[in-house]
């Protein structure tokens, strides 16, 4: 499992529409930001192919998207076999 933070830069007038589309994907979590031309999302991908396809096909291809780029990835769940459900805060 790769957990990736992705910054999507959009045309302001299209932000709501694009956000609605991206929110419909189960593997995507949107994190709201004040900026009107940015969407920050976290993608949970089983593979590089999923990550790549998602960025290129599902995000970059949307009308109004200016750019989509990963900024962060974490592979701890694969590399250290960490327990996904271990509580960090309770």
């Amino acid at each position, binding site marked *: 499992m790769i957990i990736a933070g992705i910054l999507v830069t959009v045309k302001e007038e299209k932000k709501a529409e694009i956000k609605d589309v991206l929110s419909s994907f189960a593997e995507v979590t949107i*994190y709201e930001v004040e900026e009107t031309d940015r969407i920050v999302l976290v993608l949970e991908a089983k593979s590089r192919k999923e990550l790549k396809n998602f960025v290129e096909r599902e995000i970059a291809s949307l009308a109004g998207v*200016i750019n989509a780029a990963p900024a962060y990835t974490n*592979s*701890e769940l694969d590399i250290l076999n960490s*327990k996904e459900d271990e509580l960090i805060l309770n």
Partner: protein
Amino acid sequence: MKLSRRDFLKSAAAAATIMAAGCTPRGKRRDEVQTVQDIEEVDRWEKGVCRFCGTGCGAMVGVKDGKVVAVKGSEDNPVNEGLFCVKGSLLPAYLYGEDRLTKPLIRRDGELQEAEWDEAMDLIANKFEEIIDEHGADALGFYGSGQCNASEAYAYNKLYKGAIGTNNVEGNPRTCMASAVGGYVTTFGKDEPMGIYADFEEADVFFIIGSNTAEAHPVLFNRIVKHKRENPDVKVIVADPRLTRTGEIADYYLTFKPGNDLALMNSMAYVIINEGLTDEQFIEDHTNFNSDGEDMSYEEFKEFIADYAPEDVADLVGIEAEEIYEVARLFADPDKETTSLWCMGINQRVRGVWANNLIHNLHLLTGKICRPGSTPFSLTGQPSACGSIREVGALSHLLPAHRVVDNEQHRQEIAEIWGIDPDRIQPEPGLHTISLFDATYTGDIKALFVMCTNPGHTLPNLQRYREGMERTFLIVSDIYPNRTTELADVVLPAATWVEKEGIYGNAERRTQHIAKAIDPPGEAKPDLEIVVDLAHRLGYQDLFPYEGPADVWAEYRQTTLGTGMDLAPYERYKQEHGLLWPVVDGQETKRRFVADYDPYVEEGVDFYGHPDGRAIIFARPHTPPEEPPTEEYPYTLTTGRVVEHWHTSTMTGRIPQLKRAFPEHYVEVNPEDAEKLGVNEGDMLKIISRRGEITLPTKIKGRAEPRPGLLFVPMHDEEKLINFVTIDAYDPGSKQPEYKLCAVRVEKA
């Protein structure tokens, strides 16, 4: 607030992305994001640089339990400003392949068997001494890499050229950017670009030729995409015989006939001159003209270029004359700033230096150079091809800081810093890459040390050179078994990337430090330790007193001061996200050859690499490829990169996600050709050249489309080596092989 490990990592990813983007969180997850900002998901973060392409993206490396588990873009690094490409974002995974080399191996009875370090290093040192005694120093060779860090390259360069006494030091940058070096040096008298990536955001026009930037340099491509989308008047010209993803943003796409780009660029120069789009004052003040080594006048140059009217070359180039007019006018528009980008499609040619000269010509004729947004900019394929090879001088004709071995003063300057007799450095260049490997075949090279590269996969016309490597005593230092280690007599397990400390130099003259974040696995060692160990065993302790990369850097830096390539003290690189050389009086240089930016220039523009301060506009005639198509071999084969993989996939092939994304290589065929050949998607096609053959599945409508008559094969596959087919003809100036073009025939298999 309850938070599982998985949710925590998601919030950490969001927090890092929000911070990289300089955004302010809001909404229902704001508290979650703000909470996790106070909890580190890793034990510590270390500053590094991506170790794939030559872009030089800043990478923060997250370490937990002694392993690299996370990576994020450095938001304050001007190269990538916190963002990555998908390949860079998966960097941690390549460290942890199951077959990492962790023990030295020695070939015994035909098998590579585990050995102790002392045993392996003694074997190498003894063999070297034996060869030097019997055959002389020139029977030894070294083949390094643009992935070595600068201290490693400096050390091996000094060991061979200054201690052992042979200039047979080469490296894989010979095969990727030697023609770019030749272009810069012949035109401007100094290697490496005058501009930087920040020019992209100032440009109105991009001229991209021989580069699939979208797949080979995705972060830079994203900068261009973003700039264009924010500024719709920005225009992009892409010239490539293959319609690639880079073309998705092109306003003009010139799918010219392969190998005819010299005619194309001369024709653009024709239009620029004949339509009065030149900058006459710039030409008068800052340029000379030259043909075949002889000075010529501007008027004589105009006579030369008169043969390249678009109407006269349109058939040769394979595009409409009007297209040439349009792109030339756009390039030269006096109200626009123009940046040119190119890569292997220009460099890997028998006239790669000339092709580079012709790009520079366009900028010099229009005066679109040395100002924000206007620059000719060569993209590079490896993370430190510039920093560790071009700048360190680790090719057979070079010495540190862009010096050359056949210059007596240069040898004296370096000998003084190295503490050796100047006569110890041979005055003639050593063997260049193709000659070096040919000498393994002929028996003239008795022992070859290969470091951090995979020539058993990458050399063109591979069969001969693989046989050569089998014949010679071959030492390979690397991190995974590959197609070169299988030929080796000794294999040394190397540390990589953040398992050691070092400095990389990227394509825009930015020198950056990589901190050591974790220990290497098993008995793997940094290559610097290996080189110093070998030097000591050969009796050169006094020349190699280094205790680490900082000591080497301090000596290397001395070679750069006052040369125009001045580097900063090591500590500054540890503290900052890179500095653009020359660094003079503590200040970096954003633009070379122009006053107010370059400390070596007092007034205006000064191409001080040439004694008279003038750049040279060269008359370079159209020259066809070494092997144009014929009746017997009617197709042209070209090779290249795809975004999932890098070089010989030694690293990216170990990342399961990447392997799954791109498991099988293929031959890309134009739909018209596929119909003519009677092949469908997936049908096996045998590609045959005068040197070898390979059978691959057909790809008809893939991610790109070659023009009719052209076939494309990705270069990464470890099993099916396309380089059994490619040609080893090379540019007579740069000695760079013509990987990009050879004649083949195809048969349905």
